[in-house]
């Protein structure tokens, strides 16, 4: 992520569902993470790495290692709470890559050995979770990550707080981030109990039609040959998208949720037999973010229909001997529920 210019988000050809899921997570980070599974070379990593450049800068408390939000009094870290007044600075939204082979101490944070050895001071060295606070944590090839690390990440992502109890340290700090995982199913499946904990799940495939394939290659080639020119060319579209995300965020609390939409969502989940209420909650939440993004006043059927596949497809109780793909089952249920 250093030095290299990222491919502009709005220049990504096709992959509408993936882009939508990422935008929903950018509008409402509480959605609970995005899982992107699919073919090689479909721009999974490109889309996520493009986010950092796309999203507007955020106000942070100067000098705080966790980049606390000065406006959110309740979520301040212990240090910011004790030290006042704060000075505010602007910082880009962190999009942190979790490299494969990362060890637990660097993910959670641990005793700073350097200082402990040299100065005999017991101090905490924040890990990747601290760096991802208020942003995105991206794990490429999530299915190759050690299971215990994935468990740990999901746990922190769900609670919004990282609790470190090791080496005589007892630290807790806010760690609210959107977990984005990507992977290729050929390299191993993800455990079902893990799948369910991601808010949205997207399946990506390579475009089949020739014109869009050509367009992908053309843009990629243009970008590689002249990164700054290409980025400048797309800066207008990027600014427009940024404006829409910001507008959607402001509008989000005012989006109405009519009873009819609630009922539809409940019926859809019942028809699909999803476990628990998480599916319904995510469905509603995603539909609300989408309505805000589209400039609608309330959650309507169209929004529900669009977000239902990513919100529900990974929550179906899977019959190992049923060959029907989950997506098909969701689509079938949508067709049944939404026809008057």
């Amino acid at each position: 992520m250093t030095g290299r210019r990222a491919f502009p988000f709005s220049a990504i050809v096709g992959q509408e569902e993936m882009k939508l899921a990422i935008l929903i997570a950018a509008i409402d980070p509480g959605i609970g993470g995005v899982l992107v599974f699919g073919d090689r070379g479909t721009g999974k990593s490109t889309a996520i790495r493009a986010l950092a450049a796309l999203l507007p800068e955020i106000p942070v408390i100067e000098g705080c290692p966790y980049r606390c939000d000065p406006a959110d009094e309740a979520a301040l870290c212990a240090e910011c709470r004790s030290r006042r007044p704060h000075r505010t600075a602007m910082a880009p939204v962190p999009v942190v890559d979790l490299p494969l082979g990362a060890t637990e101490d660097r993910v959670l944070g641990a005793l700073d050995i350097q200082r402990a050895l040299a100065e005999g001071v017991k101090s905490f060295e924040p890990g990747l979770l601290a760096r991802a606070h208020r942003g995105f944590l991206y794990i490429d090839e999530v299915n190759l990550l050690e299971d215990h690390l994935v468990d740990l990440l999901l746990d922190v992502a769900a609670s919004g707080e990282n609790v470190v109890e090791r080496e005589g340290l007892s630290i807790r700090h806010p760690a609210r981030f959107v977990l984005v995982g990507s992977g290729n199913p050929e390299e191993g499946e993800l455990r079902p109990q893990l799948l369910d904990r991601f808010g949205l799940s997207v399946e990506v495939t390579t475009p089949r039609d020739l014109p869009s394939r050509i367009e992908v290659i053309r843009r990629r080639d243009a970008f590689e040959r002249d990164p700054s020119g290409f980025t400048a060319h797309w800066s207008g579209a990027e600014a427009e998208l940024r404006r829409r995300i910001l507008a959607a965020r402001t509008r989000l609390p005012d989006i109405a949720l009519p009873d009819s939409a609630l009922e539809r969502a409940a019926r859809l989940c019942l028809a699909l037999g999803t476990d628990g209420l998480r599916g319904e909650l995510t469905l509603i939440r995603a539909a609300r973010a989408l309505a805000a993004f589209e400039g609608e006043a309330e959650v309507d059927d169209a929004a529900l229909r669009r977000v239902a596949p990513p919100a529900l497809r990974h929550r179906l109780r899977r019959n190992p001997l049923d060959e029907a793909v989950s997506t098909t089952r969701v689509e079938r249920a949508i067709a049944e529920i939404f026809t008057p």
Partner: protein
Amino acid sequence: MTLAAEPWADATRAAALLAIDPAGLGGASLRAPPGPVRDAWLALLRTLLPPATPWRRLPLGIADSRLLGGLDLAATLQSGRPVAERGILAEADGGLLLLAMAERLAPGTAARLAAALDTGEVAAERDGLTLRAPARVTLIALDEGIGPDESPPAALLDRLALRLDLTPIPPSATRALAPTAGQIIAARALLPRIAAGPDVLEALCATAATLGIDSLRPPLLALRLARAAAALAGREAVAEEDAALAARLVLGPRATQAPAAPEPEAPPPPPPPETAEDQPPQPSPEQLGEILLAAAEAAIPAGLLDQLRLAPARTRTPGTSGTRRASPLRGRPIGSRPGDLRGGTRLALVDTLRAAAPWQRLRGGGSPRLRIAREDIRIRRFQQRSETATLFLVDASGSAALHRLAEAKGAVELLLAECYVRRDRVALLAFRGTGAELLLPPTHSLVRARRSLAALPGGGGTPIASALDQALALADAIQRRGQTPLLVLLTDGRANIARDGRPGRERAMAEALEAARALRAARIAALLVDTSPRPQEAGRSLAAALGGRYIPLPYADAAAISRAVRAA
């Protein structure tokens, strides 16, 4: 240009192109046994690259600390403060990385290499260190696989432009003329200025689509290769023959389907390749597409059909299951615990340092030497993962079919669902007539297991002895892979075919019991489900010889069998 390519000429051309744009092309996968031909190619590549180019060899099974970088043990202990050590990826920045025995590369290592190829840097978060270093590497995957089912991980192959097969090249052929280093330098200078028209790009995309190449990386790599080829020829723009070369070198070897027959409305005879030289070099996109397709077709591997047939079976790369997880020193690390450094345990260095760190001032005062006490020592803990492979041995003989092959199938289906929950592998052996047949080698795919079960015909004799022999061989193979086999035998126990294929109940039974005892001696857990209408002595004695549980089907509904399997 000629389509029937001389393999060595192509290989030298590939080396030259790789030397022109090493970072853009990602690298090459080189299928060849170790020997003079491979050495000659590598030596050629080395002479073409600038002399100072780093050239590193990556051993198979490299640890993360060496691959990505980590803590330098000796320096850390000496200085008493953490000292980072660069990994091999960072050392190879701007140069070449040779992957020995790439066909056995673990998917985890492949993913780390792929990340370095994508981002041009190596990132590591380990041992209490955050390391970021540039790693613009070019990979040469030395593929020493023999069969079509042995190849480097697909995630890596997708990112390497070139795929060369040097196997058929005789050592005597390697003296052919090659470009000189001077030409390469000139071409490198020219490369940034090479233009490629939209027709080239479209034709390459179309060719990739026709050949069934789904990923979008290959056409992009082909485009870069075409540019490098134009630069080598001293042209300012990509010409038709550059694109044809790219199609042949990059797209052809990746074909997953033979090109479909040309559509009826298309003019049937493609223009002969020679015309390109007489005519102004401005073929229409369609024509160019056909030329590229013809070029790529020339490079489609001969064993394509074999590979396609093998493709669905090869969902996992060798290396995942190949690692044996029997030793207490190996497996997945799950942290550390205080302990003594003896009995073959392994030191968790960073954790030990961490434990010692807070006490340094108390113990030693100002001396820079690190003081580590016994209670600081931390030992690594590993978790062993032992996967179970359930081996279904189904009696499909006439007697069983008569009784209840259908019910046995139903029982197996339920067991399969159970195996899914436990993430077991399953294998399916059926026996009838004179021998047993492996219907499904150990797999995670239950859908395939069910399919092959549904297609299982019944009839013929009951060759239990040879079936058990084969089950033993398979169970042995499973054990050697570090997994635990579990045999589930569904039969009525009435053996009537001996090992040599001759009928005769008495000898068949004796041999069956003997084979069963061999399985017991090999300590393979077994379970016999008696499918005969009434529980019989034959089944019971066979189960006893196996040392396994005996479950008569009449008394057991499928759920009871499934409970029994769980308990086994």
